[in-house]
């Protein structure tokens, strides 16, 4: 165990150093047999994880609960705010203080930005941010990095395309920040109205990262090692017609992939709607379901490091 890992809470991916990220990913790799149920683990026997989900989520909540249970722990919590005392007007600060008295760790998803930061101020047990509004979702980024490393052997030395809603997508912001800590080349593919925010572009320039901004997936697909797809949401466009026109060109089909490298891998944080057609699923390039499965060992590693740190 790397004793360098000293974190009280996990709020944003930027809180981690490259070394800490490597520590988590290395441990996640060791956790795979336990995550798959092939090995029994009781490290968390007698421990309780509170999963407080003020916003619905399937993968994130289930994979945290699976991670905890695979290590012998138990979970308490709620999956919708309607079932919590927030509905009665309780502040988040109070909910957190109460939950900290019941559990050994807290996983929080909340619709407001900064909620996890606030929670960390009021909790004496570790708080893990599982998404705060348009803010951060660090464990998604960790499992994305884990998947990239698993699929390509390393995070560095890859040309990674990131496509979809780059303006509002918190997943792509966190991922881009994390990738900029490694030696990667990035291509951002989006309609001009949904480009990466200026602060992210400025950060890449400061860090000397090679990146390109293009309109169409096909433009640089032949040179890519990884393509990270995300959804373009209907509500970002003034009319349904505008949306349909733009969204269609971000639909990945099997034939679109014909000009790509043999070992290109396609990722997606899920849920997808139309942006990856079902005919891509059967190709060896489709790694998004594996990516979702990787949420369990990655979150196991994080829980373990926090508990022991």
């Amino acid at each position, binding site marked *: 165990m790397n004793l360098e890992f000293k974190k009280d809470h996990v709020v944003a991916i930027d809180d981690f150093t490259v070394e800490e990220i490597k520590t988590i990913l290395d441990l996640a790799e060791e956790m795979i047999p336990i995550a798959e149920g092939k090995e029994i683990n009781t490290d968390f026997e007698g421990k309780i994880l509170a999963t407080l989900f003020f916003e619905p989520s399937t993968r994130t909540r289930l994979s945290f609960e699976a991670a905890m249970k695979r290590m012998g722990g138990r979970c308490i919590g709620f999956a919708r705010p309607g079932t919590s005392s927030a509905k009665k*007007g309780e*502040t*988040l*600060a109070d909910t957190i203080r109460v939950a900290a008295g019941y559990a050994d760790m807290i996983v929080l998803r*909340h*619709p*407001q*930005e*900064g*909620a996890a*930061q*606030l929670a960390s*101020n009021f909790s004496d047990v570790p708080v893990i941010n599982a998404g*705060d*509004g*348009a*803010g951060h979702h660090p464990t998604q980024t960790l499992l994305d990095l884990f998947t990239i490393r698993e699929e390509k052997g390393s995070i560095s030395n890859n040309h990674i395309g990131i496509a979809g809603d780059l303006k509002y997508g918190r997943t792509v912001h966190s991922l881009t920040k994390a990738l900029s800590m490694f030696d990667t080349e990035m291509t951002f593919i989006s309609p001009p109205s949904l480009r990466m925010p200026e*602060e992210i572009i400025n950060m890449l320039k400061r860090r000397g990262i090679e990146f390109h901004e293009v309109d169409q997936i096909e433009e640089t697909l032949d040179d890519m090692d990884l393509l990270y797809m995300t959804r373009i949401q209907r509500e970002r466009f003034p009319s349904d017609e505008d949306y349909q026109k733009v969204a269609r060109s971000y639909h990945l089909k099997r034939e679109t992939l014909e000009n790509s490298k043999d070992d290109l891998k396609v990722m997606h944080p899920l849920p997808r709607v139309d942006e990856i057609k079902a005919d891509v699923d059967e190709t060896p390039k489709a790694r998004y379901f594996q990516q979702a499965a990787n949420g369990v060992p990655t979150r196991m590693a994080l829980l373990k490091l926090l508990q022991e740190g």
Partner: protein
Amino acid sequence: MEGKEKKIKITPIEHGTVIDHIKRGQAMKVLRILDLVDREIDSIVSMAMNVNSSKGKKDIVKVEGKELKNEEFDKISLISPNATVNIIRDFEVVQKHRVELPDMAKGIVKCKNNNCITNKREPIETEFEVIGEEPVRLKCVYCEREMVGEEISRNVI
């Protein structure tokens, strides 16, 4: 500087604090930042707005009988970085400071992001890191949204 103030007919005070070179239109906000609006205090507080000076229009605030402390008036720099603070004793300026930007701004401005947790009913003060000087740039410790110049004065609590 004192000569100019006399020329523009600002009544001198015997003892207290004169905040000069406040950006035009910001005097009320300075009073709010210094908590001189709602608080019950003995001092007479007066304010002059739209005063002519060599560098254009400015506002002035006078607080009689009270010497403000650095940590109080440095908060003014967030909305008026060129303001100066004069401590007056027996009608004489005994100390003159230009306001300095603090590293952190706590409980002075609210976050412009409506969806920031600090804009909900939570038992916390807003907190910003000062990340830029000209123009003043603040970054919310909670939602990380940045605010610049006018946005800051618009959001004074």
